[in-house]
């Protein structure tokens, strides 16, 4: 209970001082927000972030020469770090409860907007706390590195990994560029639109050789012929077409798929033939039997597409069986990518399978969803992030640190002095 005897601001500083300092930082942050507006991350764009990053490291090294002072001990110690983490926790909750805006309404003057809490990551309070956390964590790491001990490997992995991750992701944020490029099949494109709808020339060109889309077999359902709504309205019943399991039930109807054609084209006599081509759609020959009346209906159903009409199977005057629109299973663009240096790369892009070229990553982004697999273009997202390698290095260290936590838990001194 020595805590109570010491005056506030008298060293050693503990929670009271730490909380007050962090509270002060937040007040300064909100004051800045109210007076000069949000923190503009683009100010940090290269080369400012490199200089600032170097300055932080130089500062941390110089600062470590006074590591035996009580101020340094406090700045790199537990109460201050807990207070900083708590501040991030509180700002995080604000971010999690108040809907965050990508672009602010310039006419919005409500309380949350003025305090910057609709864009917490560019709010001065958040930026200041982040910055001081980087310094506090950095000075702790240096203090412990000077007294290096192999047995603290988990400490080093976790703290250094986190520090690198925070450092590279925060300072690098300003250098990230993201564009969407639309490329017609058979053509080459290097222009994108910026956020302000200006046309930009990128140092990367993409040639789209082919766009391929695979679809899941569609579902069958029963609709009201008048309203078109799937029945029953509160919880529509579907049967997923599955060639290995062609018998199903929808409501009071037993359904049997007699024939299923995944890429079908309609014949003049309203039957279907398999023709693999962009405009084809799934079609199925269905027998439906009403379990209550014994009524049997048989006929083709087809969900239709831009290229051909849908076909339904009337069951009664009121209801009909229809096929749903297909859902994409996989879409793939076969592309060639050319860089300014004259290099070219061939790739097949899919969701979850991007292509990395230098500091650029190219993603399968979208396609003409109304045309589905007949889409005449494919869209790509191009992301430029020169800080990705340090971020991944931080992630790897931090991940190794968490494996240490899982394996070693909290095996240290502890047990006895806890209850004293």
């Amino acid at each position, binding site marked *: 209970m020595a*805590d109570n005897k010491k005056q506030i601001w008298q060293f050693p500083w503990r*929670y009271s001082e730490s909380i007050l300092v962090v509270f002060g930082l937040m007040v300064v942050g909100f004051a800045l927000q109210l007076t000069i507006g949000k923190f503009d991350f683009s100010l940090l764009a290269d080369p400012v972030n490199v200089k600032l990053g170097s300055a932080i490291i130089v500062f941390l090294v110089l600062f470590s020469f006074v590591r035996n002072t009580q101020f340094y001990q406090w700045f790199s110690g*537990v*109460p201050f*770090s*807990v207070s900083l*983490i*708590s501040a*991030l*926790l509180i700002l*995080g*909750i604000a*971010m*999690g*409860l*108040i*809907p*965050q805006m990508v672009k602010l309404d310039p006419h919005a003057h409500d309380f949350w907007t003025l305090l910057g809490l609709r864009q917490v*990551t560019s709010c001065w309070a958040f930026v200041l706390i982040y910055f001081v956390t980087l310094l506090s964590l950095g000075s702790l790491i240096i203090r412990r590195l000077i007294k290096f001990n192999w047995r603290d490997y988990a400490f080093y992995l976790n703290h250094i990994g986190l520090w690198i991750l925070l450092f590279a992701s925060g300072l690098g944020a300003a250098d*990230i560029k*993201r564009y969407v490029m639309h490329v017609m099949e058979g053509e080459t494109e290097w222009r994108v639109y910026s956020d302000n709808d200006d046309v930009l020339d990128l140092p990367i060109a993409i040639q789209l050789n082919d766009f391929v889309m695979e679809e*899941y077999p569609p579902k069958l359902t029963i609709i009201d012929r008048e309203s078109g709504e799937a029945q029953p309205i509160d919880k529509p019943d579907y049967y*997923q077409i*599955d060639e*290995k399991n062609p018998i199903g039930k929808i409501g009071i109807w037993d359904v049997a798929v007699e024939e299923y054609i995944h890429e079908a084209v309609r014949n003049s006599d309203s039957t279907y033939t398999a023709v693999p081509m962009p405009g084809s759609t799934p079609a199925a020959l269905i027998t439906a039997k009403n379990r209550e009346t014994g009524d049997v209906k048989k006929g083709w159903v087809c969900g239709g597409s831009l290229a051909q009409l849908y076909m339904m199977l009337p069951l009664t005057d009121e209801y009909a069986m229809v096929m749903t629109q297909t*859902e*994409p*299973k*996989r*879409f793939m663009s076969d592309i060639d990518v050319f860089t300014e240096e004259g290099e070219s790369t061939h790739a097949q892009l*899919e*969701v*979850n*399978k*991007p292509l990395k070229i230098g500091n650029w*990553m190219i*993603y399968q982004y979208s396609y003409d969803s109304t045309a589905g697999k007949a889409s005449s273009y494919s869209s790509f997202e191009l*992301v430029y*992030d020169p800080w*990705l390698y340090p*971020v991944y290095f931080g*992630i790897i260290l*931090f*991940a190794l*640190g*968490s*494996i*240490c*936590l*899982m*394996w*070693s*838990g*909290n*095996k240290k001194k*502890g*047990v006895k*002095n*806890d*209850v004293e």
Partner: protein
Amino acid sequence: MTWSEYLWFAIPAIICWLSAAGIVYISNKKNLANALMILGTIIFGAFIVGLWIGQERPPLRTIGETRLWYSFFLATIGFVTYRHWKYDWMLSFSAVVATVFACVNIFKPEIHSTNLMPALQSYWFVPHVTVYILSYAMFGAAVIAAFIQLSRLNKGKEDAQLYAFIDNIVYVGFGFLILGMLMGAVWAKEAWGHYWSWDPKETWAFITAAAYLVFIHMRLQQYHKRFVLWMIPIAFILLMFTWIGVNYLPAAQGSIHVYSN
């Protein structure tokens, strides 16, 4: 092999798992519990391998298929964790949760064929979710222990062993939590173009991690014991919010983590 053979593997596996979950509490039958747990996991794993061969693709494309992996990895990692830390409840927990996932595939067979959207078809999906489930188990156990310790604290009879248990379980759970988060970040870079977008689910995961960090760091010193112990249930509520509550938040409309239609 197809889903029609599922019952022949699922039921024996479930019997093995549930028996192990009970027998582990009989002190001289630990080896039997180990053997049953391993046997159940092998039987269940054999079905996954069979399905993989039968379908000529890794079973990762439907919700039913991912559920197979949850069961398999929960049983496997849960067993390894139990062997390492010797917490009997860990074996029971992972056996029971693995059984629950296996049963969903028996009783709701229509979800075998509920298709996954392309963004979810990734090798990261299953490990990302599995390690989170295991961290929930650890943190859940920590909540119970924290309440016991709080009531002891009120009587002035703290238990050093219990403190050691709480610290350990929170460290292990935090390791799982961070691993899940980092795997999510790497996956997000592959699928969405950025490793951290402050999507509402990510924001709440950040909040949860921060709350456990407060606990872990405050435990390094001896101050404010009651507050520190209360951090565990508070952090757990935040964790539940991250898991379930986010879907109902106005701030989360349009979140990329909300997949239901």
